[in-house]
């Protein structure tokens, strides 16, 4: 999670990181209306909730003592109470670490740091043991961090108890060996065999050296302290600066937040150990602004660094930055808002600020360089600790302004203690109700008014106009500010929307205290794509300073434009409503071919019956004619052939019936073939028998 501590893989990234961060802040500065005019608000309630969220241990206890310290320190500065059970469990691990033989100076240091915040009960023997171990490690220390942990540990023991002797024997020697790691530009190296110098290390070294100052019984060599002070001044010469007045230290290894925080910590501890020294007040204020400007960091490490640094700056012996903030920079003329200014420390406290007054020095009109010099003192309300400007300076109408304030300390001596940072420029918006007069919409024909409609722009309008391409449409209205000055809004747009959805927007121009637009349709036919028909008219007037910004439909105009010439540009396609594009499609069902119309079944049956009538008539006719079977062969063999012959005919007829009912052509033809052969045979026998019989009869 913590990118400032992750080891960067290449130098390019480090550089890019610094550049990028710089760029973001530059953007912030640019976004804030005017360069060098930005508001920094002190630490607020939202920091508290963010801290509780980021530092709440997942399983009820902190994962390490370092994390515990960061959380507890942040809570302490922000005034958040720690839960007693969390306290107990943390104290227990502190005692464990201190009594454990295996813990190194870093562990001991973190344990002592936590204990200094929680006031854990540690017995004297343990402390004595720890002291001797730390003193031993001071002697063996090689790198800056070794010194830092052991000396830091000893300083913490000294603060917690007076019963243990923590004083260093060879303070001068240790001081020199740490000082030897410093670089000419005020930065420090971590150890003598590591050539990289860092700003973060400079802060660590300052803290360590101020620890040594407090751990000596005798005075240290004054030259050493002086040299160190020069180093600090050098370090501040290389400070980075943003346009909005924020200062920070950049460090390739650690990132700006932790590096700047480390320097602030070192600087304030050094100042409290060795007394104040000469750092320009605006740089200290710049550091405070840097930390206030980064907002609420999203990870716990950065939040700790931010809050810890601000906590150090809040009360220190170098210079205490005072932050001028405005609860509201948008003031309404209508509700007679008063300009209020708070002067607080970085943590938002007003109780520790010295007696002071705030003066409004200048008011710049936005967009112009000239400023009116005012030099007016704000009324102080001690109860709420707010400085109030009772009335806006004369001539301040609605609009954007930049107010320049100055903090004046009542006691000139305090200038050495507090950094006020000279003039603070703040963008202020004054909003008000804009009066609308003389609104009218007209149709002109060769500059003579054809029709005129008065408009009530604060109410509803529904005008119905009609015009052809030789006429003009004119809309005009007047806007006046509460101070009776003509007002020119940023947004004054007239919109014509054709039935087909094509929109045309025109800017209503400003001429002689009046907003006016004349649409000459002759010149516009091309732009209107020769689209005749109904156009809705809509007027939008708005400005940041206008409280009654409005956007309303005025009515419609029927335009009668000439026919579209062939080469004219077509209107652009209009956006399709997405909801309709995705809806289900209308259902389609197939229309089947209609059934062939057939006669009714009864008719078919009736005719089926009718076709049997000739058959019946035939039977009746036969019986009338006296048909008989007298000629049927009587002898056995011919009778059998005759029966077989007629049986064969019957079979063929039955086969035809079967063909109709179920058989297909192939079976039918095959069977017919067989039956045909059979019939040929039996038919021949039968017929020849009949022929011979009749021949006999004839001859007889």
């Amino acid at each position, binding site marked *: 999670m913590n*990118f400032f501590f992750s080891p960067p893989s290449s130098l390019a*990234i480090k550089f890019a*990181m610094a550049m*990028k961060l710089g760029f*973001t802040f530059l953007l912030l500065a640019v976004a804030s*209306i005017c360069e060098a005019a930005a*508001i920094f608000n002190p630490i607020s309630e939202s920091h508290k909730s963010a801290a509780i969220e980021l530092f709440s241990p997942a399983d009820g206890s902190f994962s390490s003592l370092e994390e515990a310290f960061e959380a507890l320190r942040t809570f302490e500065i922000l005034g958040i109470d720690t839960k007693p059970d969390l306290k107990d469990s943390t104290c227990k691990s502190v005692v464990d670490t201190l009594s454990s033989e295996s813990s190194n100076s870093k562990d001991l240091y973190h344990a002592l740091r936590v204990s200094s915040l929680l006031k854990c009960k540690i017995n004297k023997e343990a402390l004595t043991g720890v002291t001797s171990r730390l003193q031993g490690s001071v002697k063996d220390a090689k790198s800056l961090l070794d010194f830092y942990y052991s000396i830091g540990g000893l300083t913490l023991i000294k603060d917690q108890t007076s019963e243990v002797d923590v004083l260093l024997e060879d303070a001068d020697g240790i001081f020199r060996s740490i000082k030897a790691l410093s670089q000419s530009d005020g930065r420090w190296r971590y150890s003598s065999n590591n050539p990289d110098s860092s700003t973060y290390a400079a802060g660590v070294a300052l803290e360590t050296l101020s620890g040594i100052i407090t751990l000596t019984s005798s005075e240290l060599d004054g030259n050493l302290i002086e040299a160190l002070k020069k180093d600090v001044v050098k370090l501040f010469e290389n400070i980075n600066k943003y346009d909005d007045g924020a200062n920070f230290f950049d460090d390739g290894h650690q*990132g700006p937040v932790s590096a700047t925080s480390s320097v602030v910590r070192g600087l304030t501890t050094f100042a409290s150990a060795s007394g104040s020294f000469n750092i320009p007040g605006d740089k200290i204020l710049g550091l405070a602004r840097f930390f206030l400007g*980064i*907002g609420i960091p*999203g*990870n716990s490490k950065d939040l700790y660094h931010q809050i810890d640094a601000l906590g150090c700056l809040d009360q220190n012996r170098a210079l205490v930055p005072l932050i001028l903030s*405005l609860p*509201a920079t*948008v003031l309404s003329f209508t509700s007679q808002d008063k300009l209020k200014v708070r002067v607080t420390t970085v943590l938002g406290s007003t109780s520790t600020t010295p007696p002071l007054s705030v003066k409004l020095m200048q008011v710049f009109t936005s*967009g112009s360089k000239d400023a009116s010099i005012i030099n007016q003192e704000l009324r102080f309300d001690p109860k709420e600790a707010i400085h109030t400007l009772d009335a806006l300076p004369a001539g301040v109408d609605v609009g954007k302004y930049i107010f320049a304030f100055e903090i004046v300390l009542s006691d000139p001596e305090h200038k050495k203690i507090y950094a006020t940072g000279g003039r603070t420029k703040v*963008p202020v918006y004054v909003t008000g109700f804009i009066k609308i007069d003389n609104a009218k919409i007209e149709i002109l024909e060769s500059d003579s008014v054809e029709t005129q409609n008065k408009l009530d722009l604060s109410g509803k309008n529904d005008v119905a106009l009609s015009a052809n391409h030789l006429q003009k449409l004119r809309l005009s209205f007047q806007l006046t500010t509460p101070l009776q000055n003509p007002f020119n809004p*940023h*947004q*004054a*747009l007239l*919109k014509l929307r054709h039935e087909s959805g094509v*929109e045309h*927007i*025109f*800017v209503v121009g400003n001429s002689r205290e009046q907003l006016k637009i004349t649409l000459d349709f002759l010149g516009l036919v091309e732009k209107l794509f020769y689209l005749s028909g109904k156009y809705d008219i809509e007027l*939008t007037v*708005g400005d*940041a300073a*206008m409280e009654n910004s*409005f956007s309303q439909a005025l009515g419609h105009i029927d335009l009668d434009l000439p026919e579209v010439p062939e080469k004219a540009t077509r209107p652009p*396609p209009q*956006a*399709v409503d*997405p*909801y309709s594009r995705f*809806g*289900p499609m209308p*259902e*389609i*069902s*197939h229309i*089947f*071919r209609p059934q062939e119309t*057939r006669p009714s079944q009864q008719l*078919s049956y009736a005719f*089926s019956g009718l*076709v*049997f009538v000739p*058959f019946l008539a*035939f039977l009746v006719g*036969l019986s009338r004619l006296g*048909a*008989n*079977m007298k000629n049927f062969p009587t002898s056995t063999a011919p009778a059998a052939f*005759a029966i077989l012959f*007629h049986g064969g005919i*019957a079979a063929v*007829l039955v086969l035809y019936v079967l063909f109709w009912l179920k058989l297909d052509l192939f079976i039918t033809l095959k069977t017919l073939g067989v039956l045909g052969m059979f019939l040929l045979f039996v038919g021949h026998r039968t017929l020849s028998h*009949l022929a011979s019989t009749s021949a006999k009869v004839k001859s007889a």
Partner: protein
Amino acid sequence: MANFSIATVFVASISLLLALTHSFSLENPTDRRILVLVDDLALKSSHSIFFNSLQARGFELDFKLSDDPKIALQRYGQHLYDGLILFSPTTERFGGSLDVAAILDFVDSGKDLIVAADANASDLIRNIAAECGIDFDEDQSAVVIDHGSYAVSETEGDHTLIAAADFIQSDVLLGSTKIEAPVLFKGIGHSLNPANSLVLKVLSASPSAYSANPKSKLSSPPSLSGSSISLVSVVQARNNARIVFSGSLDLFSNKFFKSPVQKAGSSNKYAKSGNQQFATEISKWVFHERGHLKAVNVRHHRVGETDEPSIYRINDDLEYLVEIYEWSGSSWEPYVANDVQVQFYMMSPYVLKTMSSNNKGLYIASFKVPDVYGVFQFKVEYQRLGYTSLSLAKQIPVRPFRHNEYERFIPTAFPYYGASFSTMAAFFIFSFVYLYSK
């Protein structure tokens, strides 16, 4: 040396294999590995709530500076990431091999993208947007201003902090819980190409908004104005790759997530803006935790049968069944809708029918095969706002009646049959009379 390189290749392939098993697949369409490109690593901290919500949902975020020379979206033809978040509005050139073409290629392979622009957005970001049918205001200094529905603030007086509440009506895009509080927006507006049917406006500006430089006087009509300004838009490509474009990077920031909001002219004060809900829901959509459909078990048969025939006869009654499931981020849930339609299609739909559902994901339609023969297709073209599109097609031939499948005994023909058979009977009798009568 050789041993070493073999070992390296082995380890690399094993890790690649492991990585692949945990990643995006057809059966598990939610993205897993996401590359976040920022132009300032401080963003990781200032936008941490958004990133943490992604990590809490199981995404692996890989933060890189946008000009990091080691950025690569693919290696050895394999994509290293399933999604890309571009929170680097000012980047003019990406580091490494990444460029507009590489990003479009990434999208073309079905991967997802979130792009946040801001005032001063670079040409690079604008080009990526333009390729997706989104045109940011060409005026570099223009931001969206709204004097009608700005967020009431005691310190922001230029009305560029907008309280936008004109959301698209879509549960799949923005979740089923209505976003009550307006969304804070500070940035640039864009317009959508009307010819592009894949891009949708999710958050639109109010009718009184316009896009202009707040510091200079407006001399020509603003290129974007009114509710045609889109603040946040989404694109769903034909391959179901999803893209979100936001004109504001701050929209995703911790500061906006937590800040209270009150819209101008409204007395409703919300303790928290709708940004967090909006950003979370839209990220769920873009990374396929919602609205991803799959169709399985597509089958059809004649009514009363279960086997799938290889051919249908005209006028057959058939049933077409399909099961549709929606990915919920962790499992496939039955998709419930009443507008899934099936088409029986040959050159144009002959039948288009809304399918009935059993509310457990099974959709059924039964209809009669048209009396036109040829090669038909069962088609399900399901395109709904925000959902991945389903496009199913199955070919099936339809034949006419066989010769023996026509109606055999038509009553109308009975007189003819009667006539033939009576003639036959008469012939039979006549044969007796003719031969044997005296």
